[in-house]
């Protein structure tokens, strides 16, 4: 197990370096000179050259990349072309909203997905199973930005139960809960559907396993068979799906933040792409990709810990 973790950590380091390289190169390939964007239309040739020098753009590309890596290690992601503020600082102030949204959505997804999948498996081929599987497919197919708009229309505009948008307070407070409920449902629906599908198929596999038959033959009560023998084993692969979905949810926050006007990293990135604020895009992409790979690594390790049959060669 320790060897596996060390191996994965070494792989992670290479992966993180690879991500920084891709993001760095991507912004270098992008058309348009950053110095011209910063200098504006009135900048003279000497102004542009001065900006080039200040940003280190006159150095060889490999040196620029090493400077960039060095900056990342010191928490320096550069400065925004638009606001001239530190990218790391801008992202840092918005990150809590994005993380809150991803966590709240995951909670919604688990609350809906796991019971739906399990009930569906226990009542296989019933109308309940059919409805659950059909709804799961619909959940995967529904555009979340559309679902968000509909939820706003019904619950915020017509019924006026919940606010239209924004997220100013932590979600564990009552006000924060009301603010995050609609965005979390919007973002969590797709993951709930995936978790439901996984829980159902995993549960169906376990129900037919030999050890479950043995438990029944020994006269163990049905609810004990389901809760103790089946559920614990069936949920192992579900944990992986939940973990992997968390990474996906981070990507999904980009759209949901836009729909509900939440000041998160995703919204910042969309605005930055529109204004061609490359350092901001670079910082946002880097951060989300970093969190994504680290979450995936943690999921892999947790999976190996809870299921001793898993061994990574």
């Amino acid at each position, binding site marked *: 197990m320790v060897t596996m973790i060390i191996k994965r950590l070494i792989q992670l380091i290479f*992966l993180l370096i690879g*991500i920084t390289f891709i993001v760095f190169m991507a912004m270098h390939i992008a058309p348009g000179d950053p110095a011209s964007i910063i200098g504006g239309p009135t900048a003279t040739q000497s102004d542009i050259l001065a900006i080039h020098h200040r940003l280190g753009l006159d150095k060889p590309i490999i040196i620029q990349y090493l400077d960039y890596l060095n900056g990342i290690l010191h928490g320096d992601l550069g400065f925004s072309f638009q606001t001239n503020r530190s990218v790391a600082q801008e992202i840092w102030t918005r990150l809590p909203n994005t993380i809150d949204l991803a966590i709240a959505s995951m909670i919604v997804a688990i609350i809906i997905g796991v019971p739906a999948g399990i009930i569906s498996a226990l009542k296989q081929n019933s109308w309940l199973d059919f409805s659950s599987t059909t709804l799961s497919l619909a959940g*995967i*197919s*529904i555009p979340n930005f*559309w679902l968000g708009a509909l939820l706003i229309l019904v619950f915020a505009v017509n019924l006026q139960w919940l606010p239209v948008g924004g997220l100013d307070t932590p979600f564990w407070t009552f006000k924060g809960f009301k603010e995050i409920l609609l965005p979390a449902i919007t973002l969590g629906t797709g993951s709930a559907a995936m978790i439901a599908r996984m829980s159902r198929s995993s549960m169906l596999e376990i129900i037919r396993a030999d050890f479950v038959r043995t438990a029944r033959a020994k006269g163990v009560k049905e609810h004990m068979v389901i809760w103790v023998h089946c559920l614990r084993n069936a949920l192992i692969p579900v944990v992986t799906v939940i973990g992997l979905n968390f990474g996906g949810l981070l*990507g999904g926050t980009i759209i949901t933040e836009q729909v509900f006007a939440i000041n998160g990293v995703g919204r910042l990135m*969309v605005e930055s792409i529109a204004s061609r604020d490359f350092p901001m*895009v670079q910082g946002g992409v880097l951060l989300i990709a970093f969190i994504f790979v680290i979450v995936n690594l943690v999921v892999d390790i947790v999976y190996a810990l809870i299921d001793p049959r898993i061994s990574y060669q």
Partner: protein
Amino acid sequence: MQPQTTETSVSVKVSKNEALTRRLKQFFKYKLAVIGLIVILVQIFLAIFANSVTSYSPTVQDLTHVNLKPGSPGHWLGTDNYGRDMWSRLVFGARLSLMVGFSSVIIGTVIGTLLGLLAGFYKFLDTIIMRISDLMFAFPGILLAMLIIAILGTSLLNVVIAISIWSIPSCARIVRGSVLSLKKQEYITAMRALGASHFRIIFQHILPNGTAPIIVFATMHMGTAILSTSALSFLGLGAEPSTPEWGAMISAGQQYMWQAPHLVIIPGIAIMLVVFAFNVVGDALRDMLDPNMKSR
């Protein structure tokens, strides 16, 4: 000798037809997938005959008839905030979403398949291709697409490129998996012993026998491509707001949602129906073609 060959080819043809009929019969057992197939066929029909089934141009404005509700005379799905006919925009949107979906799936699947074949067949290429795909997997799909659009600029064509690139590693991985198991088969060993070239083994023997997972991937990915295109257009990173693209229509309609909810509801239902259709058909194909993946 001649009659025997003809006999053999006839029997092969008959057995191929039988297999196709059997597959079709099998497919028709999946009721939801049949409904999905009908939805896809209707969309294809509308996309092809868009000019014949609509009476108005999807882009021509009529400011005397703005935000008409569905069921209005002359505009059975109503009009938008510029007085453009919603039915026309929906139908031309179907054409656009199919075009974007098909092109990105074809580009992604072709390149992904080629890379997967190479990675599975040649060990030295395997490490390189798979490490690059690992790196691409480090970015959530939509993020990777946004990064590509940030480089290339916002347009529908760039969305196609972005979604194609995003789908390459998944496809390559699936194909590589099939190649790894297929190349151990006895008939491949026999082909090698007979001195067949690598090109012939890969494209005439491995590829035709490994098409099932590619078909399933492409079908399932159509839904993802359509959904992602509309999401990117919604964010303002894809189609221009005036373009009859479903995501852009929702984005534009959001401002008028309180007075004219149909501007948001109608294109949303269209996206959901089409993506749902591709997903159920993909699910059924997976169950049929890949028994190991069968969702119980």
